[in-house]
């Protein structure tokens, strides 16, 4: 096994952008049919590494070998011809085209006047999906598919293009647990077909689950490669960050605190039914369940974006009727959405503008005008407190990394000083160090009496941050647990059983 020629071998690979070293002397290999995990914090050079192997960036030094042959210089077309496929985080699909056309898109590429053979494209798509043992409606538009289904289309497209090594950049960032399991099953199939898969992931539990080897990168260098059974999550986290991160249980008994939010028999047809719970001042309440369990729908109703059809909501003991999210903000409710890229921030606007977005009124002086100095002060203060890495307050949010964007969203709501903060999957796509930062903010807010409702897919996350955890299934609350009274494993069993 050890004597086998690796499919891909990098030796002494370096990449500089101007004076910045993005990759430094990387020696790395991927074996045929191997599942390999590449982990590291944001900005550690993972993406540069992928792009260099995919022929997007020419390396500054070093060699790239495929099956023992030096393949430099490399361009994207040549890399593809050698069987290297990259599935980018945004999936790069065509939402306006059918599933079949997306999968067999390569058959359009050469020439301009070649006839389109729909039957042939469908046959290609069907064959590839059959290899994955999956069915999808081939004539459905990709814009009608769920994220998980789109990912399948992206993988199928790689297979249709004769992939032998597939890089998946953050493939699980927007998937729920059940969908991740499905993806892992697909990866197992690829492996059985002799196709190597390199997973680039932030979520460490997956790394340990499916990979044979793990490579950790930090600051453009390779820290090392280990067989997966020699490292555990804690050690990987340590290798990635150089920090020791403590996942101790923090659950406190908050039953003496005054109730902040009381929800009684709340229902909305087709979304959730008969939901009752109490959230106390300063409490961190977890809400877990599968995608489609109604968690986000419940959160949107609590935030006034949709109206409940039955039941009541009490805030500070007073009945709360919300006709819009503006009223919710005025009542002291803040909501950080799951999809930070489309709902949470205004990407092309500056960091300062985004932080100030939810508090405009509060900043206004007696003439109703907002003094620029107060805006800048407020934004500057939150940037410092959340340790957001920014080049300047006037820079557009879209220039920041995902984790820092997430913290800008958080800053936006914290600046509004809410009573109740609803966090919907706040750490999706965020790396460990930044996650820890978010947890610290949550704990700090709770200590100041803010009630936090934390919606999450990750049991380890709610286990480590919440005082109590509610389980939601098919629109109903089906159970409540206290972290520490049962183990993390037991909790996972109860939720995903």
């Amino acid at each position, binding site marked *: 096994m050890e004597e086998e020629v690796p499919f891909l071998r990098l030796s002494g690979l370096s990449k500089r952008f101007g004076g910045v070293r993005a990759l430094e002397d990387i020696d790395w290999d991927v074996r045929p049919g191997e599942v390999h995990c590449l982990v590291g914090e944001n900005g550690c050079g993972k993406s540069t590494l992928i792009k260099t192997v995919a022929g997007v960036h020419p390396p500054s030094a070093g060699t790239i070998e495929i099956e023992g042959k030096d393949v430099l210089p490399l361009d*994207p*077309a040549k890399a*593809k011809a050698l069987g290297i496929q990259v599935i*980018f985080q*945004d999936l*790069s*699909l*065509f*939402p*306006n*085209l059918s599933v079949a*056309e997306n999968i067999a*898109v*390569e*058959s*359009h*590429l*050469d*020439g*301009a*006047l*070649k*006839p*389109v053979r729909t039957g042939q494209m469908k046959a290609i798509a069907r064959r590839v999906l059959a290899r994955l*043992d*999956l*069915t*999808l*409606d*081939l*004539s*459905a538009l990709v814009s*009608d*598919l*769920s994220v*998980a*289904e789109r990912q*399948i289309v992206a993988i199928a497209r790689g297979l249709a293009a004769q992939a032998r090594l597939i890089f998946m950049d953050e493939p699980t960032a927007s998937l729920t647990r*059940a969908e991740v*399991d*499905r993806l892992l*099953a*697909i990866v197992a199939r690829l492996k059985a077909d002799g196709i190597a898969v390199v997973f680039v992931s932030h979520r460490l539990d997956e790394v340990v689950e499916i990979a044979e080897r793990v490579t950790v990168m930090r600051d453009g260098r390779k820290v090392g490669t280990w067989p997966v059974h020699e490292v555990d999550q804690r050690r990987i986290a340590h290798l990635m960050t150089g920090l020791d991160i403590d996942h101790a249980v923090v659950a406190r008994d908050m039953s003496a605190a005054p109730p902040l939010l009381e929800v009684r028999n709340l229902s909305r047809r*087709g*979304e959730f039914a008969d939901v009752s719970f109490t959230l106390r001042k300063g409490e961190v309440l977890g809400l877990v369940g*599968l*995608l*489609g*369990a*109604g968690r986000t729908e419940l959160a949107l109703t609590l935030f006034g974006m949709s109206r409940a059809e039955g039941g009541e909501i009490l805030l500070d003991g007073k009945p709360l009727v919300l006709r819009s999210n503006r009223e919710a903000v005025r009542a002291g409710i803040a909501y950080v959405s799951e999809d930070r890229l489309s709902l949470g921030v205004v990407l092309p606007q500056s960091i300062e503008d985004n932080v100030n977005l939810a508090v405009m009124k509060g900043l206004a002086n007696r003439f109703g005008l907002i003094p620029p100095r107060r805006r800048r002060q407020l934004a500057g203060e939150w940037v410092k407190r959340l340790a957001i890495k920014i080049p300047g307050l006037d820079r557009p949010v879209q220039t920041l990394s995902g984790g820092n964007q997430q913290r800008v969203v958080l800053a936006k709501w914290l600046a509004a000083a809410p009573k109740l903060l609803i966090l919907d999957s706040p750490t999706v796509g965020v790396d460990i160090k930044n996650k820890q930062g978010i947890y610290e903010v949550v704990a700090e807010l709770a200590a100041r009496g803010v009630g936090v409702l934390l919606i999450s897919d990750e049991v380890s996350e709610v286990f480590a941050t919440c005082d109590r955890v509610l389980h939601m*299934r*098919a*629109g109903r609350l089906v159970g409540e647990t206290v972290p520490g009274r049962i183990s993390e494993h037991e909790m996972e069993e109860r939720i995903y059983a």
Partner: protein
Amino acid sequence: MPDALSVAGAVPHASDGRAGLTRLRRRPEFWLLLVILIVGALFSALAPGFLSLPNVIDLLETYSVQAVMAMGLFVVLVAGGIDISFAATASVSQYCAALLASQMGLPAPLVILAGLLIGTALGCLNAALIFYLRITSIIATIAMMSVSFSLLMYFSGGRSIYTLPDWWTTRITFFQTETASGDLARITLPIVLMIVVALVTWAMMTRLSVGRQLYAMGGNAEAARRIGVPIARLHFVAYGYLGFTAALAGMLQAHRVGESVPNAFANTELAVLSAAVLGGASLTGGIGTVPGVLLGIVLLAMLQNGLNLLGVSSYFFQIVIGLTILVSTSVTVISSRRGRRLRGIGEASTHG
């Protein structure tokens, strides 16, 4: 595991009749056809001459020029761009060709070729501005519209050319029949040309790889670039084709009216754009069909002609067009949004 895997295909299947119907209901062409049938029935009840064969044929001929332009504009819209300058391009090509024919007495094939070349070149100039200089397409083409139209007015002095040669202005009839009422109904060159251009455009966009590449680029330009779609070439194809069809429409218009008037196409660009949008072509790119755009033209033609027959003011017609566009686009959005919400709930129940 296979159990879990099959859930991934939770999309309704094509063979499912209800899914097919849902899909049909989400197509703008479906709604447009419905509206056209209703409007048609209404007008034929109110204005007896409306559905007569001569009136319908006459309508087709009148709108053939706009339909030919709309085919070119449709290609640009699908590619993810927009072009405001095509009416000016049509005027310039028409006038230049008219000059060559009347002043220099060039033969027909040369005049037509020159006109088409001028149109295509102006289109390619747009493509170059948009692709190489990265000027937003609406800005680049507004600028080009100003420049080319003003140059035309400057050099022509606004003078029309009435001395077009006979080969240009002679009516060409492919088929004619006498109706029961004794009127003549003729299938003439403009109608035939419109059908040919529509067929060519349809074939190019649905049956040739270049068309699918255009759809792909309009749907996700970044992804198209990543997988190696020839972006530069596609810009020239789209804007060049629009220039070509604009020139063709320009010369066709002169053929119909027997003269070349420099400002004959004033405001045509907005009418054609309205028709394309009505027909479901998306201004964000990647979406739209030839039948849809043609139906958009048909609806506009019917509204104008029908209201005319009823003796309604032409300002009122503009109001109706505006309202029709608002209503038809919102119906499309609402029906697709409803589809999405129902699907979300369906998913929730499968997890129960």
